[in-house]
């Protein structure tokens, strides 16, 4: 029953992907992109829509759900029309054609499927029997606000009242709004709904890594990248806690994947830019850190272009990108201006202390040391496994003439710098703040690091397949 409530976001999101990329979105591994990204952006759009309805019209009734279904039907008919009216030449000669990179290694494929199934079973057992309500931040933020919106009747705005220090009532509403929307459809606040969303974003991230690396580097490299994520048990743990960090990680990863696809398939660049805009707006609509990401994506993608950019092309791409993000970001601005209390980082008291924080050398050392320590000890030191793999396999040097990859690495570095400064100016006890959140900040960027790592290192395509055939 819970999955029924997920159908219209999935249809809306998947239809948008098919309308924009009709050549390939329904073929082979591209179906993973269509379903996973489609579900993610569909949840972003529908959570925005239901929040606007609640705020401007009142409690969503059958008229809202009828309107949502009509939009889903119109979009799916448009997607069907776009797909049906592709000229046969488009299908055969599509710029986004699926390349026969190399045959997949059968044992690697089988191992991937087995480990995926076991990981999903572990995740669901943990989420259902151990943390069905999530853990601390879910009780103070994500599920707490959804309960207020669902049970609160005309007092639903208590969802955004700050009661104690750990509350984050100013956080955006993609998760909260999606849970509320599904509860409203089902007529009950089942715990299965947040569990379903947590499962979707956790395994959606892994499948998106598999799809992107398989598409850009070959299936075997894709299996390896996804299997590397299976080692990252911290990612599964945080996912099962029903926090916003794994959904944010999903949207950050999706944005970077879409930008990489734009570079890989320049003929489809404007259409993919629309999807990139949608994905980055969903990141901003998920958590405040997503707002930082949105600004940095704009900076890295459109301002600090490597080489001499073609301005007309850049302007067109920028327009497409901003059209993609317009609806969700407009909802976010409305929420921030009308409902969200001021964030504690930018409160008046904190701004007065800013000077003292910025000239406190001990604070810099404390934050820097904590971040570096966490990076090297995250998930029992998994980064050392990455380093060892890199030493054995080496970089794929053919990737590095493409300066865009370096710009994505730079984007990740800027995100870490953003986290660094948010700790630096934190009004709370810094040691406490770092201790309670740094692991989750690493989780937000972890899938994107894994994607960029496996995009850049040499893969098993040639050597292993040759060995298999011997």
């Amino acid at each position, binding site marked *: 029953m819970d999955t029924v409530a997920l159908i219209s976001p999935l249809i809306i999101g998947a239809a948008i992907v098919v309308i924009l990329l009709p050549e390939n979105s329904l073929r082979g591994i591209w179906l993973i992109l269509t379903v996973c990204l489609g579900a993610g952006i569909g949840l972003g759009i529908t959570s925005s829509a239901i929040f606007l309805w609640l705020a401007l019209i009142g409690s969503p009734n059958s008229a809202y759900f009828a309107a949502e279904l009509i939009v889903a039907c119109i979009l799916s008919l448009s997607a069907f029309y776009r797909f049906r009216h592709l000229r046969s030449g488009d299908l055969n000669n599509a710029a986004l054609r699926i390349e026969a990179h190399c045959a997949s290694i059968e044992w*690697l494929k089988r*191992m991937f499927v087995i*480990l995926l199934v*076991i*990981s999903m*079973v*572990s995740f669901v*057992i*943990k989420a259902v*029997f*151990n*943390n*069905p*309500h*999530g*853990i*601390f931040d879910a*009780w*103070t933020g994500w*599920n*707490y606000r959804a*309960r*207020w919106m669902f*049970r*609160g*009747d005309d*007092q639903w705005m*208590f969802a955004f009242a700050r*009661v*104690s220090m*750990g509350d984050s009532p100013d956080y955006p509403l993609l998760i909260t709004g999606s849970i509320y929307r599904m509860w409203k459809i089902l007529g009950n606040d089942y715990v299965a709904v947040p569990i379903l969303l947590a499962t979707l974003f956790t395994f959606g991230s892994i499948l998106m890594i598999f799809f992107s690396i398989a598409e850009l580097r070959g299936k075997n490299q894709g299996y*390896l990248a996804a*299997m*590397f994520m*299976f*080692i990252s*048990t911290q990612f*599964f743990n945080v996912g099962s806690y029903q926090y916003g960090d794994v959904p944010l990680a999903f949207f950050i990863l999706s944005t970077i994947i879409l930008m990489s696809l734009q570079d890989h398939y320049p003929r489809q660049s404007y259409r993919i830019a629309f999807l990139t805009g949608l994905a980055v707006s969903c990141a901003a609509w998920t958590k405040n850190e997503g707002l930082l990401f949105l600004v940095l994506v704009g900076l890295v993608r459109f301002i600090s272009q490597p080489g001499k950019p073609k301005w007309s092309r850049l302007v067109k791409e920028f327009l497409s990108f901003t059209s993609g993000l317009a609806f969700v970001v407009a909802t976010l601005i409305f929420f921030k201006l009308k409902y969200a209390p001021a964030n504690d980082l930018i409160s008046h008291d904190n701004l007065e202390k800013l000077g003292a924080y910025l000239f406190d050398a001990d604070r810099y050392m404390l934050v820097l040391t904590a971040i570096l320590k966490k990076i090297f000890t995250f998930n029992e030191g998994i980064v050392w*496994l990455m380093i*060892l*793999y890199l030493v*054995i*396999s080496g970089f794929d040097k053919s990737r590095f003439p493409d300066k865009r990859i370096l710009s994505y690495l730079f984007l990740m570095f800027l995100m870490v710098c953003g986290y660094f400064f948010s700790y630096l100016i934190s009004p709370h006890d810094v040691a406490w703040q770092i201790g309670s959140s740094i692991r989750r900040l690493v989780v937000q960027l972890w899938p994107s690091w894994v994607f960029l790592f496996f995009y850049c290192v*040499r893969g*098993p395509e040639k*050597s*292993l397949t040759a*060995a298999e055939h011997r």
Partner: protein
Amino acid sequence: MRGAVLLIVIPAFFVVIIYFFSIVTEIFIEEYHQSAIDYERRLAPLKEDLPPHAVFNYISDQHAAEDFVLVRYAVIPARPVRGMKPSQDYLVVQYLDTNAIPKFGGYFLKRDYGNGVMLFQRNR
């Protein structure tokens, strides 16, 4: 290159299996679960007795930071106020480690749920 591949495949295999068994052990043998489940169960009958959107005082012998957070989460759309001030018409007491039924001036015991949770109401 085969060595590099095995460097990922072998740890992935063992980590996934060990993770699975650690979760099964934790949940089905050690029977560990988050306290939110207990709070939901314990406070469910209280919700029936509180008027919708009631504001009530809340007293507890639990000192964990999550105690008030979990009560606040479980009783939505009612709203707890930690402590006795400002005083409200209803008072909810959760004494999990204290056996005696407490007395509060100006309040009478409306219902003892038998699981440590008690609902008091102000004398009229």
